[in-house]
């Protein structure tokens, strides 16, 4: 296995999906909202980027819009699009509590997936949009994969900085109060509905950016890439890392991505051995989860880091 390629892949996708986990951490651990539709905002970002940057349809293309815009415009529209989708889905649903919100957001994501699959005018339906444009940035001999790894890292750091800033402010304090006791928070003038809505929309923006970056890296957007599996992946990462700190969210994601990339990189001689490995993977994954959750390994590391006492 090529160790360098593995490292770059882990860094790229680890940071990229960490953005999703961090947003989920903000929504759930601090905002008290269970969002089971994370993938939808990711997909909106990816599709928005593709639509803005691709060329107008020609030949066999079935999509209707291609703006042929610059990559940075696509990137910005991806963030705005995800925020717009969050406004659209958050407005009617955020009054719901706990598992009801989880079900509704999950349903929204499924509806979007179904829509993208069947409405060919958006992104060629199930075929998807291939050859999504990559930004034409090249620094001397640095390969593209390194540039994307750096971009993912930057996006993750920017997300952390913005979220930190929010959480360390009176806004974060009011969020904690709202999550602890809505009625008491309203009695001191905290607008619970407004705050939940704002947190929901704000945290969708980095997810949209991550979607755009994902589209650049894979150069393909198709409904297959944006199934509920992505949502479950980041939820598992959040659970593994512990929901209480941002470092935990990042550690959980990186470990999960590493595990996936390592398994993906193992070469098999026969189909039979690949089948055995696939079933062993499930058992191994389960065993690792049990170990991590039993001793709350990442949660301990991240809490020890955040409270040097």
């Amino acid at each position, binding site marked *: 296995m090529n160790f360098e390629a593995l490292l770059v892949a882990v860094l790229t996708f680890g940071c990229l999906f960490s953005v999703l986990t961090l947003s989920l951490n903000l929504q759930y651990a601090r905002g008290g909202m269970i969002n089971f539709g994370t993938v939808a905002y990711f997909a909106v970002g990816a599709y928005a980027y593709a639509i803005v940057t691709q060329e107008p349809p020609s030949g066999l293309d079935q999509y209707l819009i291609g703006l042929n815009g610059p990559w940075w415009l696509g990137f910005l529209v991806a963030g705005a699009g995800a925020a717009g989708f969050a406004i659209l889905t958050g407005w009617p649903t955020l009054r719901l509590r706990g598992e009801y919100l989880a079900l509704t957001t999950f349903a929204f994501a499924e509806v979007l997936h179904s829509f993208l699959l069947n409405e060919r005018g958006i992104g060629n339906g199930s075929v998807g949009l291939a050859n999504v444009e990559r930004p034409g940035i090249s620094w001397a001999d640095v390969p593209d994969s390194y540039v994307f790894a750096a971009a993912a890292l930057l996006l993750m750091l920017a997300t952390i900085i913005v979220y930190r800033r929010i959480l360390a402010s*009176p*806004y974060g*304090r009011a969020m904690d*109060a709202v999550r*602890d006791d809505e009625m*008491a928070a*309203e009695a001191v*003038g905290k607008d619970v509905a407004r705050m939940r809505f704002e947190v929901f929309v704000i945290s969708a923006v980095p997810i949209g950016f991550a979607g755009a970056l994902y589209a650049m890296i894979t150069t393909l957007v198709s409904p297959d890439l944006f199934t509920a599996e992505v949502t479950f992946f980041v939820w598992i990462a959040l659970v593994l890392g512990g929901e209480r700190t941002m470092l935990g969210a990042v550690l959980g994601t990186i470990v999960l991505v590493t595990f996936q990339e390592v398994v993906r990189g193992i070469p098999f001689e026969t189909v039979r051995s690949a089948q055995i490995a696939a079933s062993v993977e499930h058992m191994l994954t389960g065993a690792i989860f049990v170990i991590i959750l039993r001793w709350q390994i990442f949660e301990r590391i991240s809490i020890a880091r955040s409270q040097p006492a």
Partner: protein
Amino acid sequence: MNRDFLIVDGVTKRFGGLQALGGGGGLSFTVPRGTFLGLIGPNGAGKSTTFNIISGVLKPNTGAVYLDGQNLSETRTPEIAAHGLGRTFQTPRAFPSLSILENVIVGADSAGERLGAVLSGRWRRDEPKLKEKAVAALERVGLGNRTAESVASLSGGELRMLEVARQLVRDPKILLLDEPTAGVDPSLQGRLSDILVRLHENGTTLIVVEHNLHFLLRIADSIVVLQNGELLAQGSPQAIRSDERVVAAYLGNDHAA
């Protein structure tokens, strides 16, 4: 100006089949600005329901509550609080993930609770002032030396005082306290009555639900008595003390002499 500050006008409230408030035509009473009103009545008389309707947690089935001309029954709870109405709860409510000091600071309306101000960092210069105010409020309720502790270390009575401190930093125009002395030891009760008297002197309108009549009749200047969701009597503590209907319904016959 002496016009009525708070008007409860023909309020009724049903919970399922139970007529909790205003069975016979609705509950009505008025509270002039600056009054220290005691709200009393036997269990089930509708005191807490009245309280929750005034503070907007419950909406009345019919009738309305007006604060300074504003119809509170059509106003959302956070906006009612923003209009200067503060309240505590019958069961004290704290924010467990915040420290004692933060539990009080969070009561204030900080500029930093607006996202624009957060991202630009403009809130920072207000923070020391808020902190100072919160520490002062905690000192007033006798928790001045516990600021860094977790709320889990507070007793039930101390939690009530914490709620009072959280309201003090808001400088409410009208403050509603739901059984503030329940579970509070005598020395803290003395402190509490000092705080209430001081607020009253400074012109804050107070409405206090209380079972501890000795506490209330000594410091309130007006009493409303509820029974079965209806207004039984309203008047000065002296008048209430000698009102035979009140004595019979609430204080018990042995007080009649």
